[in-house]
Protein backbone atom coordinates (compact mmCIF):
# COMPACT_ATOMS: atom_id res chain seq x y z
CA UNK A 1 0.00 0.00 0.00
CA UNK A 2 2.68 2.45 1.06
CA UNK A 3 6.37 1.71 0.91
CA UNK A 4 9.31 3.66 2.27
CA UNK A 5 12.62 2.96 0.55
CA UNK A 6 15.68 4.31 2.39
CA UNK A 7 13.87 7.52 3.19
CA UNK A 8 15.97 10.26 4.80
CA UNK A 9 15.04 13.80 5.70
CA UNK A 10 17.39 16.61 6.60
CA UNK A 11 16.66 20.06 7.90
CA UNK A 12 19.68 22.30 7.89
CA UNK A 13 22.50 20.16 9.15
CA UNK A 14 20.27 17.84 11.21
CA UNK A 15 19.29 14.37 10.01
CA UNK A 16 15.73 14.13 11.25
CA UNK A 17 15.05 10.81 9.52
CA UNK A 18 17.84 8.38 8.69
CA UNK A 19 17.32 5.89 5.88
CA UNK A 20 14.01 4.39 6.92
CA UNK A 21 12.66 1.46 4.95
CA UNK A 22 9.28 -0.03 5.86
CA UNK A 23 5.85 -0.89 4.52
CA UNK A 24 2.32 -0.01 5.59
CA UNK A 25 -0.28 -2.60 4.56
CA UNK A 26 -3.95 -1.89 3.80
CA UNK A 27 -6.05 -1.94 6.95
CA UNK A 28 -3.03 -1.65 9.26
CA UNK A 29 -3.43 -0.24 12.76
CA UNK A 30 0.00 1.19 13.24
CA UNK A 31 1.48 3.42 15.88
CA UNK A 32 4.82 5.15 15.61
CA UNK A 33 6.29 5.12 19.08
CA UNK A 34 9.31 6.86 20.55
CA UNK A 35 10.52 9.68 22.75
CA UNK A 36 10.21 13.37 21.85
CA UNK A 37 12.51 14.29 18.99
CA UNK A 38 12.62 10.73 17.65
CA UNK A 39 11.28 11.88 14.27
CA UNK A 40 7.79 10.33 14.54
CA UNK A 41 5.87 13.38 13.33
CA UNK A 42 8.38 14.06 10.57
CA UNK A 43 8.11 10.48 9.33
CA UNK A 44 4.34 10.74 9.33
CA UNK A 45 4.41 14.05 7.44
CA UNK A 46 6.68 12.40 4.89
CA UNK A 47 4.26 9.52 4.47
CA UNK A 48 1.31 11.91 4.18
CA UNK A 49 3.13 13.75 1.39
CA UNK A 50 3.26 17.06 3.24
CA UNK A 51 7.03 17.20 3.03
CA UNK A 52 9.33 15.51 0.57
CA UNK A 53 12.23 13.23 1.53
CA UNK A 54 15.80 14.50 1.09
CA UNK A 55 16.69 11.07 -0.29
CA UNK A 56 14.94 7.76 -0.84
CA UNK A 57 11.45 7.23 -2.20
CA UNK A 58 7.93 6.71 -0.93
CA UNK A 59 5.65 4.74 -3.22
CA UNK A 60 1.89 4.47 -2.94
CA UNK A 61 -0.27 1.88 -4.58
CA UNK A 62 -3.21 2.78 -6.83
CA UNK A 63 -5.70 2.93 -3.97
CA UNK A 64 -3.86 5.98 -2.59
CA UNK A 65 -3.44 7.81 -5.85
CA UNK A 66 -6.70 9.80 -5.55
CA UNK A 67 -6.60 13.44 -4.43
CA UNK A 68 -8.50 12.76 -1.21
CA UNK A 69 -7.20 9.30 -0.37
CA UNK A 70 -4.89 10.52 2.40
CA UNK A 71 -6.14 12.16 5.57
CA UNK A 72 -3.85 13.96 7.98
CA UNK A 73 -4.76 15.19 11.45
CA UNK A 74 -1.98 17.42 12.75
CA UNK A 75 -0.90 17.73 16.34
CA UNK A 76 -1.92 21.40 16.38
CA UNK A 77 -5.57 22.33 16.22
CA UNK A 78 -5.57 23.40 12.60
CA UNK A 79 -8.83 25.31 12.94
CA UNK A 80 -10.06 28.87 12.52
CA UNK A 81 -10.65 30.04 16.08
CA UNK A 82 -13.64 32.22 15.31
CA UNK A 83 -15.56 30.04 12.89
CA UNK A 84 -18.26 27.66 14.08
CA UNK A 85 -18.19 23.87 13.78
CA UNK A 86 -20.79 24.10 11.04
CA UNK A 87 -18.79 26.71 9.10
CA UNK A 88 -15.69 24.54 9.30
CA UNK A 89 -17.39 21.49 7.90
CA UNK A 90 -19.14 23.47 5.15
CA UNK A 91 -15.86 25.13 4.23
CA UNK A 92 -13.88 21.91 3.85
CA UNK A 93 -16.80 20.20 2.16
CA UNK A 94 -16.82 22.91 -0.47
CA UNK A 95 -13.09 22.63 -0.88
CA UNK A 96 -13.22 18.96 -1.70
CA UNK A 97 -16.36 19.50 -3.77
CA UNK A 98 -18.53 17.20 -1.72
CA UNK A 99 -22.05 17.44 -0.35
CA UNK A 100 -23.31 16.08 2.94
CA UNK A 101 -23.19 12.29 2.68
CA UNK A 102 -23.92 9.32 4.95
CA UNK A 103 -20.24 9.07 5.94
CA UNK A 104 -20.23 12.64 7.16
CA UNK A 105 -23.52 12.26 8.98
CA UNK A 106 -22.24 9.14 10.71
CA UNK A 107 -19.02 10.87 11.72
CA UNK A 108 -20.90 13.89 13.07
CA UNK A 109 -23.24 11.66 15.01
CA UNK A 110 -20.56 9.35 16.43
CA UNK A 111 -18.43 12.26 17.56
CA UNK A 112 -21.53 14.09 18.84
CA UNK A 113 -20.79 17.32 17.04
CA UNK A 114 -24.42 18.33 16.52
CA UNK A 115 -24.66 19.59 20.11
CA UNK A 116 -21.99 22.18 19.33
CA UNK A 117 -22.96 22.83 15.73
CA UNK A 118 -23.19 26.62 15.98
CA UNK A 119 -20.47 27.17 18.56
CA UNK A 120 -17.24 28.93 17.63
CA UNK A 121 -14.05 26.93 18.02
CA UNK A 122 -12.75 29.27 20.72
CA UNK A 123 -15.89 28.51 22.76
CA UNK A 124 -15.29 24.75 22.78
CA UNK A 125 -13.45 22.58 25.31
CA UNK A 126 -10.08 21.02 24.40
CA UNK A 127 -11.71 17.65 23.81
CA UNK A 128 -14.35 19.10 21.50
CA UNK A 129 -11.74 20.95 19.53
CA UNK A 130 -9.88 17.66 19.02
CA UNK A 131 -13.06 16.05 17.76
CA UNK A 132 -13.59 18.85 15.24
CA UNK A 133 -9.94 18.62 14.23
CA UNK A 134 -10.42 14.89 13.61
CA UNK A 135 -13.63 15.41 11.67
CA UNK A 136 -12.20 18.09 9.40
CA UNK A 137 -9.14 15.92 8.64
CA UNK A 138 -11.34 13.01 7.59
CA UNK A 139 -14.05 14.85 5.75
CA UNK A 140 -12.84 13.58 2.39
CA UNK A 141 -13.32 9.94 3.44
CA UNK A 142 -9.67 8.91 3.20
CA UNK A 143 -8.28 5.43 2.61
CA UNK A 144 -5.43 6.02 5.01
CA UNK A 145 -5.37 8.46 7.88
CA UNK A 146 -2.35 9.83 9.73
CA UNK A 147 -3.01 11.16 13.22
CA UNK A 148 -0.36 13.08 15.13
CA UNK A 149 -1.11 12.83 18.87
CA UNK A 150 -4.86 13.19 18.35
CA UNK A 151 -5.81 12.57 21.98
CA UNK A 152 -3.83 15.28 23.75
CA UNK A 153 -6.02 17.06 26.31
CA UNK A 154 -9.02 14.87 25.55
CA UNK A 155 -11.21 13.62 28.42
CA UNK A 156 -12.15 9.96 28.69
CA UNK A 157 -15.63 10.39 27.22
CA UNK A 158 -14.33 12.22 24.15
CA UNK A 159 -11.48 9.72 23.84
CA UNK A 160 -14.04 6.90 23.86
CA UNK A 161 -16.04 8.54 21.04
CA UNK A 162 -12.92 9.15 18.95
CA UNK A 163 -11.55 5.62 19.45
CA UNK A 164 -14.95 4.18 18.65
CA UNK A 165 -15.04 6.12 15.38
CA UNK A 166 -11.48 5.23 14.35
CA UNK A 167 -12.02 1.53 15.10
CA UNK A 168 -15.22 1.58 13.11
CA UNK A 169 -13.39 3.10 10.15
CA UNK A 170 -10.59 0.57 10.42
CA UNK A 171 -13.10 -2.26 10.39
CA UNK A 172 -14.17 -0.95 6.97
CA UNK A 173 -10.62 -1.16 5.65
CA UNK A 174 -9.28 2.32 6.42
CA UNK A 175 -5.61 2.23 7.42
CA UNK A 176 -4.81 4.05 10.67
CA UNK A 177 -1.32 5.38 11.37
CA UNK A 178 -0.88 7.43 14.51
CA UNK A 179 1.59 8.88 16.98
CA UNK A 180 0.84 8.79 20.67
CA UNK A 181 2.48 8.41 24.06
CA UNK A 182 -0.69 7.00 25.57
CA UNK A 183 -0.51 3.25 26.20
CA UNK A 184 -4.26 3.01 26.66
CA UNK A 185 -4.78 4.33 23.13
CA UNK A 186 -2.12 1.97 21.78
CA UNK A 187 -3.88 -1.01 23.32
CA UNK A 188 -7.23 0.13 21.94
CA UNK A 189 -6.21 1.20 18.47
CA UNK A 190 -2.90 -0.38 17.38
CA UNK A 191 -1.75 -3.81 16.26
CA UNK A 192 1.67 -2.84 15.01
CA UNK A 193 4.36 -0.55 16.41
CA UNK A 194 7.28 1.19 14.79
CA UNK A 195 9.81 2.01 17.48
CA UNK A 196 11.86 5.08 16.71
CA UNK A 197 14.72 6.95 18.32
CA UNK A 198 16.99 9.72 16.95
CA UNK A 199 15.47 9.51 13.46
CA UNK A 200 16.06 5.74 13.21
CA UNK A 201 13.37 3.15 12.85
CA UNK A 202 14.79 0.65 15.33
CA UNK A 203 12.14 -2.01 15.33
CA UNK A 204 8.88 -3.09 13.78
CA UNK A 205 6.81 -5.31 16.03
CA UNK A 206 3.32 -6.14 17.14
CA UNK A 207 1.98 -4.49 20.27
CA UNK A 208 1.98 -7.90 21.98
CA UNK A 209 5.66 -8.43 21.21
CA UNK A 210 6.58 -5.05 22.63
CA UNK A 211 4.43 -5.48 25.72
CA UNK A 212 5.77 -8.94 26.46
CA UNK A 213 9.42 -7.87 26.10
CA UNK A 214 10.00 -10.00 23.03
CA UNK A 215 12.12 -7.34 21.40
CA UNK A 216 15.70 -6.35 21.94
CA UNK A 217 16.73 -2.73 21.76
CA UNK A 218 20.37 -1.74 21.20
CA UNK A 219 20.43 0.56 24.23
CA UNK A 220 18.49 -0.82 27.19
CA UNK A 221 18.81 2.40 29.17
CA UNK A 222 17.43 4.59 26.40
CA UNK A 223 14.38 6.87 26.66
CA UNK A 224 12.53 4.50 24.34
CA UNK A 225 13.17 1.57 26.67
CA UNK A 226 11.82 3.59 29.61
CA UNK A 227 8.71 4.49 27.61
CA UNK A 228 8.09 0.87 26.73
CA UNK A 229 8.36 -0.15 30.36
CA UNK A 230 5.47 2.24 31.11
CA UNK A 231 2.93 -0.07 29.47
CA UNK A 232 2.70 -1.92 32.77
CA UNK A 233 1.20 1.10 34.50
Amino acid at each position, binding site marked *: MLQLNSVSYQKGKSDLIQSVSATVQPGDRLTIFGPNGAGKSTLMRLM*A*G*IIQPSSGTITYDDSLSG*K*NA*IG*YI*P*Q*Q*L*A*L*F*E*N*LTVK*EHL*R*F*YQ*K*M*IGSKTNPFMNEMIETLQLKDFWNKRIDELSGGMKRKVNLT*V*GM*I*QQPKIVFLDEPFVGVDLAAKHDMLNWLNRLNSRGVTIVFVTHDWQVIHELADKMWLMENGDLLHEATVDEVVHDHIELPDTSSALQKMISFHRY
Partner: protein
Amino acid sequence: MFMIWKSILKRKTTWVLVVIIPILFGLVIYPTIKDTVSQVSVPITVVDQTDQEITDELLNEIDEEPFQVSRMDTLDLRLLSTGEAEAIFVFNDNMEANILSGQTDEIITWYRTENSYVDGLFKEKLASALMSRVVRAEAASVVTQYKPEADWEEVYEYGLRYFEPRPIFEMKFEHISGVEDRSATVDESGDHLLFILLWLYISMLIGYFTQFLYEWRADGVLERLQMVQRSGRFYLTWLIGVFGITYSIFLMATQLMEIPVVKWAYLIPFGTVLIYFIFFEIVKKKWTMYAWMISYSVASFVIFLLADWKIIESDWMYLFIPTWLLV
Protein backbone atom coordinates in the same frame (compact mmCIF):
# COMPACT_ATOMS: atom_id res chain seq x y z
CA MET B 1 -12.41 30.29 0.11
CA PHE B 2 -14.39 33.32 1.25
CA MET B 3 -14.46 31.57 4.61
CA ILE B 4 -10.88 32.59 5.38
CA TRP B 5 -11.98 36.22 5.06
CA LYS B 6 -15.05 35.53 7.14
CA SER B 7 -12.68 34.32 9.83
CA ILE B 8 -10.62 37.52 9.55
CA LEU B 9 -13.64 39.81 9.47
CA LYS B 10 -15.11 38.17 12.56
CA ARG B 11 -12.30 39.71 14.61
CA LYS B 12 -13.09 43.04 16.22
CA THR B 13 -9.52 44.23 15.68
CA THR B 14 -10.06 44.00 11.93
CA TRP B 15 -12.99 46.41 12.09
CA VAL B 16 -11.09 48.76 14.37
CA LEU B 17 -8.18 48.87 11.93
CA VAL B 18 -10.16 48.99 8.70
CA VAL B 19 -13.05 51.24 9.74
CA ILE B 20 -12.52 53.03 13.06
CA ILE B 21 -8.93 54.17 12.50
CA PRO B 22 -9.61 55.72 9.05
CA ILE B 23 -12.63 57.55 10.51
CA LEU B 24 -10.57 58.82 13.46
CA PHE B 25 -7.82 59.81 11.05
CA GLY B 26 -10.33 61.69 8.92
CA LEU B 27 -11.92 63.44 11.87
CA VAL B 28 -8.92 64.22 14.08
CA ILE B 29 -5.51 63.78 12.50
CA TYR B 30 -6.27 64.99 8.97
CA PRO B 31 -7.70 68.40 10.04
CA THR B 32 -4.79 68.84 12.49
CA ILE B 33 -2.24 68.23 9.76
CA LYS B 34 -4.09 70.48 7.36
CA ASP B 35 -4.15 73.20 10.05
CA THR B 36 -0.44 72.75 10.65
CA VAL B 37 0.23 73.12 6.96
CA SER B 38 -1.99 76.21 6.73
CA GLN B 39 -0.14 77.71 9.68
CA VAL B 40 2.82 78.13 7.37
CA SER B 41 0.97 81.18 6.02
CA VAL B 42 1.60 84.51 7.78
CA PRO B 43 -1.38 85.98 9.62
CA ILE B 44 -1.63 89.74 9.09
CA THR B 45 -4.33 92.01 10.48
CA VAL B 46 -5.32 95.26 8.81
CA VAL B 47 -7.37 97.79 10.78
CA ASP B 48 -9.45 100.35 8.94
CA GLN B 49 -11.90 102.14 11.21
CA THR B 50 -13.60 104.11 8.42
CA ASP B 51 -13.99 101.27 5.95
CA GLN B 52 -12.29 103.03 3.05
CA GLU B 53 -12.54 101.84 -0.52
CA ILE B 54 -8.79 102.00 -1.01
CA THR B 55 -8.33 99.38 1.71
CA ASP B 56 -10.21 96.83 -0.40
CA GLU B 57 -8.14 97.78 -3.46
CA LEU B 58 -4.85 97.42 -1.60
CA LEU B 59 -5.76 94.13 0.03
CA ASN B 60 -7.01 92.65 -3.22
CA GLU B 61 -3.76 93.63 -4.82
CA ILE B 62 -1.51 92.00 -2.25
CA ASP B 63 -3.74 89.16 -1.06
CA GLU B 64 -1.63 86.19 -2.05
CA GLU B 65 0.53 83.44 -0.49
CA PRO B 66 1.98 83.28 2.07
CA PHE B 67 -0.16 85.96 3.75
CA GLN B 68 -3.45 85.32 5.40
CA VAL B 69 -4.91 88.80 5.79
CA SER B 70 -7.83 89.52 8.05
CA ARG B 71 -9.53 92.90 8.17
CA MET B 72 -10.87 94.54 11.34
CA ASP B 73 -12.36 97.88 12.23
CA THR B 74 -10.84 98.20 15.72
CA LEU B 75 -7.31 97.76 16.96
CA ASP B 76 -6.77 94.76 19.22
CA LEU B 77 -3.10 94.41 20.22
CA ARG B 78 -3.75 91.13 22.03
CA LEU B 79 -3.69 89.45 18.62
CA LEU B 80 0.06 90.02 18.58
CA SER B 81 0.68 88.48 21.98
CA THR B 82 -1.52 85.46 21.26
CA GLY B 83 0.21 84.90 17.94
CA GLU B 84 -3.02 85.29 15.97
CA ALA B 85 -1.39 88.13 14.08
CA GLU B 86 2.24 88.39 13.00
CA ALA B 87 1.74 92.14 12.56
CA ILE B 88 -1.05 94.71 12.58
CA PHE B 89 -1.26 97.55 10.09
CA VAL B 90 -3.60 100.38 11.12
CA PHE B 91 -4.71 102.59 8.23
CA ASN B 92 -5.19 106.27 8.92
CA ASP B 93 -8.85 107.42 8.88
CA ASN B 94 -8.14 109.77 5.98
CA MET B 95 -5.63 107.56 4.21
CA GLU B 96 -7.36 107.69 0.84
CA ALA B 97 -7.58 111.49 0.86
CA ASN B 98 -3.99 111.81 2.08
CA ILE B 99 -2.68 109.58 -0.72
CA LEU B 100 -4.61 111.46 -3.40
CA SER B 101 -3.29 114.76 -2.08
CA GLY B 102 0.27 113.44 -1.92
CA GLN B 103 0.56 113.54 1.86
CA THR B 104 2.21 110.30 2.87
CA ASP B 105 3.40 111.01 6.41
CA GLU B 106 2.15 108.50 8.98
CA ILE B 107 -0.78 107.26 6.98
CA ILE B 108 -0.17 103.71 8.28
CA THR B 109 0.88 102.55 11.76
CA TRP B 110 2.72 99.23 11.86
CA TYR B 111 2.53 97.12 15.05
CA ARG B 112 4.81 94.15 15.47
CA THR B 113 6.68 92.23 18.20
CA GLU B 114 10.16 90.80 18.59
CA ASN B 115 8.66 87.51 17.37
CA SER B 116 7.53 88.99 14.06
CA TYR B 117 9.88 87.79 11.34
CA VAL B 118 8.30 87.78 7.94
CA ASP B 119 5.83 90.65 8.25
CA GLY B 120 8.45 92.89 6.61
CA LEU B 121 7.59 91.33 3.28
CA PHE B 122 3.97 92.37 3.68
CA LYS B 123 5.11 95.87 4.61
CA GLU B 124 7.17 96.03 1.39
CA LYS B 125 4.24 94.89 -0.72
CA LEU B 126 1.92 97.33 0.99
CA ALA B 127 4.40 100.18 0.57
CA SER B 128 4.85 99.32 -3.09
CA ALA B 129 1.08 99.35 -3.71
CA LEU B 130 0.77 102.65 -1.82
CA MET B 131 3.68 104.30 -3.61
CA SER B 132 2.20 103.38 -6.96
CA ARG B 133 -0.95 105.27 -5.98
CA VAL B 134 0.97 108.23 -4.56
CA VAL B 135 3.00 108.53 -7.76
CA ARG B 136 -0.09 108.26 -9.93
CA ALA B 137 -1.89 110.92 -7.83
CA GLU B 138 1.19 113.17 -8.15
CA ALA B 139 1.22 112.54 -11.89
CA ALA B 140 -2.49 113.36 -12.18
CA SER B 141 -2.00 116.61 -10.23
CA VAL B 142 0.99 117.69 -12.39
CA VAL B 143 -0.73 116.83 -15.66
CA THR B 144 -4.01 118.59 -14.80
CA GLN B 145 -2.01 121.65 -13.65
CA TYR B 146 -0.41 122.03 -17.10
CA LYS B 147 -3.28 120.61 -19.17
CA PRO B 148 -6.53 121.77 -17.53
CA GLU B 149 -8.63 119.81 -20.06
CA ALA B 150 -7.09 116.53 -18.84
CA ASP B 151 -9.28 114.30 -16.65
CA TRP B 152 -7.68 113.86 -13.23
CA GLU B 153 -9.34 110.43 -12.71
CA GLU B 154 -8.08 109.18 -16.05
CA VAL B 155 -4.56 110.37 -15.45
CA TYR B 156 -4.61 108.86 -11.99
CA GLU B 157 -5.77 105.54 -13.45
CA TYR B 158 -3.04 105.51 -16.09
CA GLY B 159 -0.57 107.82 -14.39
CA LEU B 160 2.45 105.60 -14.70
CA ARG B 161 2.02 105.54 -18.48
CA TYR B 162 2.17 109.37 -18.61
CA PHE B 163 5.44 109.37 -16.73
CA GLU B 164 6.91 106.55 -18.74
CA PRO B 165 9.68 106.22 -16.20
CA ARG B 166 12.83 104.47 -17.29
CA PRO B 167 14.05 101.91 -14.86
CA ILE B 168 17.07 102.84 -12.79
CA PHE B 169 18.79 99.66 -13.99
CA GLU B 170 17.72 96.88 -16.26
CA MET B 171 18.04 93.27 -15.15
CA LYS B 172 18.57 90.61 -17.76
CA PHE B 173 15.75 88.10 -17.39
CA GLU B 174 15.83 84.58 -18.72
CA HIS B 175 13.08 82.06 -18.25
CA ILE B 176 14.34 78.57 -17.52
CA SER B 177 11.78 75.96 -18.46
CA GLY B 178 11.43 72.77 -16.45
CA VAL B 179 12.08 74.45 -13.10
CA GLU B 180 9.43 73.51 -10.57
CA ASP B 181 6.89 76.03 -9.50
CA ARG B 182 8.02 76.76 -5.95
CA SER B 183 4.64 78.08 -4.92
CA ALA B 184 3.17 74.67 -5.67
CA THR B 185 5.82 72.93 -3.56
CA VAL B 186 4.40 74.44 -0.38
CA ASP B 187 1.08 72.65 -0.96
CA GLU B 188 2.69 69.43 -2.19
CA SER B 189 4.85 68.99 0.89
CA GLY B 190 1.69 69.03 3.01
CA ASP B 191 0.10 66.45 0.71
CA HIS B 192 3.23 64.32 0.82
CA LEU B 193 3.23 64.30 4.61
CA LEU B 194 -0.36 63.05 4.50
CA PHE B 195 0.60 60.52 1.86
CA ILE B 196 3.46 58.99 3.85
CA LEU B 197 1.18 58.75 6.90
CA LEU B 198 -1.40 57.03 4.72
CA TRP B 199 1.27 54.60 3.49
CA LEU B 200 2.40 53.84 7.05
CA TYR B 201 -1.19 53.03 7.93
CA ILE B 202 -1.62 50.80 4.87
CA SER B 203 1.66 49.08 5.64
CA MET B 204 0.49 48.42 9.21
CA LEU B 205 -2.80 47.07 7.88
CA ILE B 206 -1.07 44.65 5.51
CA GLY B 207 1.19 43.59 8.39
CA TYR B 208 -1.95 42.81 10.40
CA PHE B 209 -3.36 40.66 7.59
CA THR B 210 0.00 38.91 7.13
CA GLN B 211 -0.13 37.96 10.79
CA PHE B 212 -3.05 35.62 9.95
CA LEU B 213 -0.88 33.75 7.47
CA TYR B 214 1.71 33.25 10.23
CA GLU B 215 -0.97 32.09 12.68
CA TRP B 216 -2.43 29.67 10.15
CA ARG B 217 1.01 28.35 9.34
CA ALA B 218 1.83 27.82 13.04
CA ASP B 219 -1.55 26.17 13.71
CA GLY B 220 -1.20 23.84 10.74
CA VAL B 221 -4.19 25.39 8.93
CA LEU B 222 -2.17 26.18 5.81
CA GLU B 223 -0.80 22.66 5.76
CA ARG B 224 -4.29 21.25 6.03
CA LEU B 225 -5.62 23.54 3.30
CA GLN B 226 -2.71 22.59 1.08
CA MET B 227 -3.32 18.92 1.82
CA VAL B 228 -7.01 19.11 0.97
CA GLN B 229 -6.74 21.44 -1.97
CA ARG B 230 -3.31 20.62 -3.37
CA SER B 231 -3.01 24.18 -4.70
CA GLY B 232 -2.15 27.67 -3.52
CA ARG B 233 -5.67 29.02 -4.03
CA PHE B 234 -5.96 30.16 -0.42
CA TYR B 235 -2.93 32.41 -0.94
CA LEU B 236 -4.66 33.86 -3.96
CA THR B 237 -7.82 34.45 -1.91
CA TRP B 238 -5.78 36.17 0.77
CA LEU B 239 -4.00 38.34 -1.80
CA ILE B 240 -7.22 39.34 -3.56
CA GLY B 241 -8.79 40.34 -0.24
CA VAL B 242 -5.78 42.35 0.90
CA PHE B 243 -5.47 44.07 -2.49
CA GLY B 244 -9.17 44.89 -2.39
CA ILE B 245 -9.05 46.45 1.07
CA THR B 246 -5.78 48.36 0.62
CA TYR B 247 -6.71 49.72 -2.82
CA SER B 248 -10.15 50.80 -1.57
CA ILE B 249 -8.60 52.70 1.32
CA PHE B 250 -5.78 54.09 -0.81
CA LEU B 251 -8.05 55.40 -3.57
CA MET B 252 -10.66 56.76 -1.19
CA ALA B 253 -8.09 58.50 1.00
CA THR B 254 -6.16 60.06 -1.88
CA GLN B 255 -9.44 61.32 -3.37
CA LEU B 256 -10.75 62.73 -0.09
CA MET B 257 -7.45 64.32 0.88
CA GLU B 258 -6.93 65.52 -2.71
CA ILE B 259 -3.45 64.06 -2.87
CA PRO B 260 -2.23 64.22 -6.48
CA VAL B 261 -1.29 60.67 -7.47
CA VAL B 262 0.94 60.02 -10.47
CA LYS B 263 0.64 56.76 -12.39
CA TRP B 264 3.52 54.97 -10.63
CA ALA B 265 1.91 55.72 -7.28
CA TYR B 266 -1.00 53.43 -8.12
CA LEU B 267 1.45 50.54 -7.80
CA ILE B 268 2.38 51.47 -4.22
CA PRO B 269 -0.30 49.34 -2.46
CA PHE B 270 0.47 46.46 -4.84
CA GLY B 271 4.20 46.68 -4.12
CA THR B 272 3.63 46.90 -0.38
CA VAL B 273 1.38 43.82 -0.30
CA LEU B 274 3.86 41.94 -2.45
CA ILE B 275 6.80 42.80 -0.23
CA TYR B 276 4.94 41.56 2.86
CA PHE B 277 4.03 38.34 1.06
CA ILE B 278 7.63 37.79 -0.01
CA PHE B 279 8.73 38.36 3.59
CA PHE B 280 6.13 35.83 4.71
CA GLU B 281 7.58 33.25 2.34
CA ILE B 282 11.19 33.97 3.31
CA VAL B 283 10.98 34.78 7.01
CA LYS B 284 9.56 31.92 9.01
CA LYS B 285 9.13 33.65 12.36
CA LYS B 286 6.40 36.25 12.75
CA TRP B 287 8.36 38.58 15.02
CA THR B 288 11.41 38.48 12.77
CA MET B 289 9.17 39.55 9.90
CA TYR B 290 7.73 42.36 12.01
CA ALA B 291 11.22 43.55 12.97
CA TRP B 292 12.19 43.66 9.28
CA MET B 293 8.99 45.36 8.20
CA ILE B 294 9.10 47.98 10.95
CA SER B 295 12.70 48.76 9.99
CA TYR B 296 11.69 48.94 6.33
CA SER B 297 8.72 51.21 7.09
CA VAL B 298 10.79 53.59 9.21
CA ALA B 299 13.54 53.68 6.57
CA SER B 300 10.92 54.30 3.86
CA PHE B 301 9.45 57.16 5.89
CA VAL B 302 12.84 58.85 6.27
CA ILE B 303 13.96 58.21 2.68
CA PHE B 304 10.63 59.49 1.35
CA LEU B 305 10.94 62.76 3.25
CA LEU B 306 14.60 63.21 2.26
CA ALA B 307 13.70 62.55 -1.37
CA ASP B 308 10.73 64.91 -1.14
CA TRP B 309 13.02 67.65 0.16
CA LYS B 310 15.48 66.91 -2.65
CA ILE B 311 18.21 66.01 -0.18
CA ILE B 312 18.67 62.67 -1.90
CA GLU B 313 18.07 62.00 -5.55
CA SER B 314 19.21 58.57 -6.55
CA ASP B 315 17.77 55.46 -8.18
CA TRP B 316 18.30 53.28 -5.12
CA MET B 317 15.73 55.29 -3.20
CA TYR B 318 13.01 53.60 -5.30
CA LEU B 319 13.70 50.42 -3.35
CA PHE B 320 11.57 52.14 -0.72
CA ILE B 321 8.08 51.86 -2.10
CA PRO B 322 6.54 55.22 -1.01
CA THR B 323 9.12 57.09 -3.09
CA TRP B 324 7.28 55.84 -6.19
CA LEU B 325 4.99 58.81 -5.60
CA LEU B 326 7.93 61.07 -6.47
CA VAL B 327 8.79 59.39 -9.78
